[in-house]
């Protein structure tokens, strides 16, 4: 098969079109008659000129160079790469949902508002919170939204609290969101069991503590068993507890952040609730709060008055708007469809299966890799490649070797507090056969490291491209296509 490596710009030929528009039915107007010359574009944008079939072939060829969940197992820890249901895609494309404008009178969009209202109510139940906003577009935006509410809450009480506490195993977005919200981050070390060190926490909690951000189960896949004591310490000092819902797939129907003592929660609907990851987004990061924080929720709020759904903009203590319109409606709609599909019992079984799968897979792999934590895990677990590193093979190499078997590698080198970390999240939607096949391959790679390390060190062997020079990409950034420059590089390459 001939390899296809062209950019869409490189297959462009002057005069080709990939779509056609009708003739004007209102006559022609000359731009020059309406606009001063200096405001009229003089050099056209160099968009490609390609036929419709060329477009279909180009993007099909690109898709063939991409690994998604439908292609194969995707145990990317902390990302919850579960199956993306097809009904969700169909529903999001219904004309009554996709072809409505956000500023239509509310009487004309009651169906859409009903979806939003019910989703708010149900996410509140699932998280044990009193109210939910659906506005934030992703987890990180949810974190920032939550922290802005923390800020407003303390300010309203006349307090200035400047510090946000974050465990060392936290996602990078936690400290980054704290900074964007204007807080200083204090890192709390984990103890030898991978959990928040309560004594360390006590040392840092004080009258300047605005909030503690916590993922539970944490990014090591471990449940913070002292969560009630942690909550008490933070609350006693007047701080609030923020729940990062990245790992909510472990607790549906089993417990709630609300009962653990959290005041604010975000969920990643693109993780736990099957909104597809889309190659990086769009996501949705709804935020739930306890009653005392309701006044600070973003506006507008979706409310129900008698039998009508309405938008309420009038909340004087609200932190304001955080996102355009009402959030990523299309993703919210997919989550709503998923919750309807699974129902109350189904959601509980999701978490039970996810946790069973993670424990089973860990059990199979433990003899071959270092497992830094021995207690029961939740929906994901970490392994360390330190045993293999001593033999000269790094976790990165093993990850690349997995590509040869058609697997997306686990998350690697995160969390930062585990050496040569592999973070594995199998999810509930994979079959036992898949888990076993993956375990077999991991075990084979562990043996290769001992017997034939070069096959791992030189991996991948079967992908469309080898390991890429990332240093070169960063030192001499080429961030867009420029025809002349590309031609020049090609000439140079030919010369060499």
């Amino acid at each position, binding site marked *: 098969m001939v390899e296809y490596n062209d950019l869409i710009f490189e297959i462009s030929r002057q005069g080709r079109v990939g779509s056609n528009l009708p003739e004007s039915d209102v006559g022609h107007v000359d731009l020059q008659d309406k606009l001063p010359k200096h405001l009229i574009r003089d050099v056209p944008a160099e968009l490609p000129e390609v036929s419709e079939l060329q477009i279909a072939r180009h993007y099909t060829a690109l898709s063939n160079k991409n690994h998604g969940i439908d292609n194969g197992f995707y145990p990317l820890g902390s990302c919850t790469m579960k199956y993306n249901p097809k009904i969700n895609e169909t529903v999001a494309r219904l004309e009554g949902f996709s072809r409505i404008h956000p500023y239509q009178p509310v009487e004309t969009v009651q169906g859409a508002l009903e979806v939003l209202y019910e989703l708010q109510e149900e996410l509140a139940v699932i998280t044990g919170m009193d109210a939910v906003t659906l506005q934030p577009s992703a987890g990180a935006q949810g974190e920032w939204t939550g922290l802005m509410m923390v800020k407003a809450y303390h300010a309203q009480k006349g307090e200035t609290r400047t510090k946000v506490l974050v465990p060392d195993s936290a996602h990078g977005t936690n400290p980054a969101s704290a900074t964007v919200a204007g807080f200083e981050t204090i890192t709390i070390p984990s103890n030898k069991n991978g959990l928040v060190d309560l004594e360390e926490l006590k040392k840092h909690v004080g009258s300047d503590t605005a909030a503690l951000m916590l993922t539970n189960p944490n990014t090591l896949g471990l449940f913070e068993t002292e969560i009630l004591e942690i909550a008490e310490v933070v609350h006693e000092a007047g701080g609030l507890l923020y729940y990062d819902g990245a790992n909510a797939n472990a607790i549906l129907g*089993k417990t709630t952040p609300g009962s653990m003592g959290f005041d604010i929660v975000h969920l990643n609907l693109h993780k736990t609730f099957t909104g*597809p*990851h889309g190659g*990086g987004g769009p996501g949705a990061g709804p935020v739930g709060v306890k009653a005392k924080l309701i006044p600070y929720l973003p506006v507008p709020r979706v409310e129900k008055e008698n039998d009508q759904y309405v938008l309420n903009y009038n909340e004087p203590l609200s932190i304001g708007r955080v996102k355009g319109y009402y959030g*990523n409606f299309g993703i919210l709609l997919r989550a709503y469809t998923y919750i309807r*599909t699974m129902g109350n019992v189904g959601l509980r079984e999701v978490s039970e299966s996810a946790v069973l799968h993670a424990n089973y897979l860990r059990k199979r792999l433990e003899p071959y890799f270092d497992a830094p934590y021995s207690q029961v895990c939740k929906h994901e677990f970490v392994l360390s490649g330190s045993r293999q590193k001593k033999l000269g093979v790094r976790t990165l190499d093993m990850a690349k070797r997995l590509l040869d078997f058609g697997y997306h590698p686990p998350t690697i080198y995160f969390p930062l507090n585990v050496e040569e970390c592999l973070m594995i999240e199998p999810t509930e939607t994979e079959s036992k056969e898949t888990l076993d096949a993956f375990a077999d391959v991991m075990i084979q790679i562990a043996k290769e490291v001992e017997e034939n390390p070069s096959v791992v060190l030189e991996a991948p062997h079967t992908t469309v491209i080898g390991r890429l020079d990332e240093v070169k990409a960063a030192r001499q950034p080429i961030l867009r296509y420029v025809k002349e420059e590309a031609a020049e590089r090609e000439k140079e390459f030919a010369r060499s």
Partner: protein
Amino acid sequence: MSNTYRYLPDTTQDQEEMLAALNISSIDVLFEDIPAEIRLQGELAIPDAVSEPLLMKKMIQLSAKNKNANHYPTFLGAGTYDHYIPNVVDHMLLRSEFYTAYTPYQPEISQGELQAIFEFQTMVCELTGMDVANSSMYDGFTSLAEAASLAVASTRRSKVLVSKAVHPESRAILQTVAAGPGYAVEEVNLVNEVTDLNQLGQQIDKNTAAVIVQYPNFFGSIEDLAEVKKIAAENGALFIVSANPLALALLQTPGHFGADIVVGDMQPLGIPMSFGGPHCGYFAVSKKYMRKIPGRIVGQTEDESGKRGFVLTLQAREQHIRRDKATSNICSNQALNALASSICMSALGKQGIRRMAQLNFEKADYAAKALEKKGFTIINKAPFFNEFVVELPCPVKEVNAKLIKAGIIGGFDLGKDYGLENQMLLAVTEQRTKEEIDKLIEVLEAVVNG
């Protein structure tokens, strides 16, 4: 567990085998690390599961409660537009290798996504006339706020000036965002529905990090970027432009006028209205700010054999590396919608995008002239692209209710945000036929005449 859930493959036997391997008797054992007092008893108080056929029926019924643009020609714009999306776009978007993948952390098996983003970045640069674009932002509004924060961080100044003709939601989000680091946001008044340059000249000072305008502005009018740039540059402030990417097919680029940052939303090019989201923010900068840009960026490089390939690059800016020192907290973005937009721009192509823009321009011009002929006043003094403001003798709210009865979705009510309750912002895209425009005017006339 039962076998009633099509996304859960475990059979009873599978479970038993896994439990046996773990040497435990039940799944409950795996949840004993959760303190007993917070373990849920009973089921969540949410509805029971619904089968696929019944759920499909329910969702169709729910969607039918909404009046949609296929059956109600819409004249709403104000940041979200009804434009034609070529069929090839959604067919390619449904390639699940794209939509079921995540951020391309493993470049060897993500070249498709990475190349698509590289092409997207190129197209955004072409439209805006800028040097560097990222892989996308949540939406145009949040993208604008991020631009303001970039300007504040990079100039170490603490005030931004934003024109009141910038979208009200952009300004609202900017206010929320600014409260984090604590910089000041001052609004600049308008004269004849464009930014008042005299006012701007008075408000700007050596503590101003950026001047922000919209192009075309919220009222549809085309701001004179050359004049705004002059004032910003004289004071060492960054020049930030929020631009409609479709309009840029015909309008001189912000890059040409010396914009430092250009932001906006790609929704007009290939993305359904979807009740306001997900859309797709874009973020483009001049070379100087390349290493300060928020979010993911894809760069070209090569593998060991010299073969061209693409990777996520300049990651030292990002949260997963820099944590609390990152330039932004953004992680997930709108990659799939950026892809939609790329495919749409490829389908329209160099000629088609100009034709689409030209049709918008002509239809809006026709509608405005026809309204004037019937005695309506058009508020815009400056030239406009596909949106303009018409003055009505009664509140827009009442008029829109009557338009709905006539099967038309009327324009945006300027009452709530600007206190102009008799002024309607009308968007006339290439989707509106002469017949639909004439019908709108006919109904408006009937309303006016009682």
